[in-house]
């Protein structure tokens, strides 16, 4: 058998309850359970987390940086989505 290190998993850590999960790095593992345990051992040696996600790296679909212009462009011309587009009378606060 070929000497395999297992597949690559991307690791996301939630640092506190309520916080979003943030990408920390990756680990190699052969199955779900081992991926979680390896991620804990590697990225949480100093109580960095309250929750962990591990995702097979091959399952992540990413946009490509070359398309940054055309892909995100549709939001550029909709300035009316930002509050600063609207003027309010002088002296109005908390709005």
């Amino acid at each position: 058998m070929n000497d395999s290190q297992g597949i690559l998993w991307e690791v996301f850590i939630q640092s506190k309850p309520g916080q979003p999960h943030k990408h920390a790095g990756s680990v190699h593992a052969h199955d779900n359970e081992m991926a979680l345990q390896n991620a804990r051992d590697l990225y949480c040696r100093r109580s960095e987390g309250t929750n962990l996600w591990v995702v097979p790296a091959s399952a992540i679909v990413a946009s490509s940086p070359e398309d940054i212009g055309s892909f995100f462009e549709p939001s550029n011309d909709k300035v009316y989505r930002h509050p600063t587009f609207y003027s309010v009378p002088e002296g109005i606060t908390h709005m």
Partner: protein
Amino acid sequence: MNSLKLDENQLIENFEAKLAKNEMIEPKDWMPAQYRKHLIRQISQHAHSEIIGMQPEGNWITRAPSMRRKMVLLAKVQDEAGHGLYLYSAAESMGISREEMLDQLHTGAAKYSSIFNYPTLTWADMGAIGWLVDGAAIMNQVMLQRTSYGPYARAMVRICKEESFHQRQGYEIMNVLASGSAEQKEMAQDALNRWWWPSLMMFGPRDEESPNSEQAIKWKIKRETNDQLRQRFVNQTVSQVEKIGLVVPDKAIKWNEAKNGYDFGEINWDEFWTVVKGNGPCNKARIAAKIKSHEEGAWVREAANAHAEKNNKTKAA
């Protein structure tokens, strides 16, 4: 999605513009083949250094002088393993596999930091390594937190945070020995004598002898040169040596007001190149131990693989 096919010159221009703005290069960004090659070599060798670096310290775990020291040393060696794994992951994001990197280490195609080819003869060496070797590594790694490749920079931030206890525990060991009995103080001085020069060698050849440096600076992989980092290390370390009553093993050490730093003696570059080329005191033993542990662990990987396959079949059925 219509992705424009840009020509090579345009791609290089975009890449350099990004560097000029101090933006990070991410795995899916276009990058020159030489940039990729340079970083794969640097990151994988950095990873190998962390992994091989477990051996000289691992040598003393069973003989640590107290339970406290044993726990600390275990935690430190475990950190080194973790640092190696962060770095392998960062290198993998550039398209090289873990298996390939391990193979390069085992066959000698890839190098690792020469400092780990020196033996750890006494307990004081655990002090000298944490203080000087980790100290020199931190100097380099603090700079690399701002390296231009995103995954490498982020691994460095994590590593630097974790390193902070490594250097202090080493200095503490040295301080305790240096303020102990005459024999203990002598042991501390002996360790300092043996580790001082190899620590200065960790920064690599002098700038004018370092062919990769100029390109690395241009690509913002490195932000400072070997000699700049080495000088800063000497400047910071001399007073730490004096503070605990030890002596820097270099007669040429002298404060130089004009450059606001210490002058120091010439490194033995013949020794440096001898160790780099594989003929240091422990090169062969380190690689042999690494290969042995890899081979002895093969059954674990095979079993894990078989277990995963069996589970997948059960689920599919």
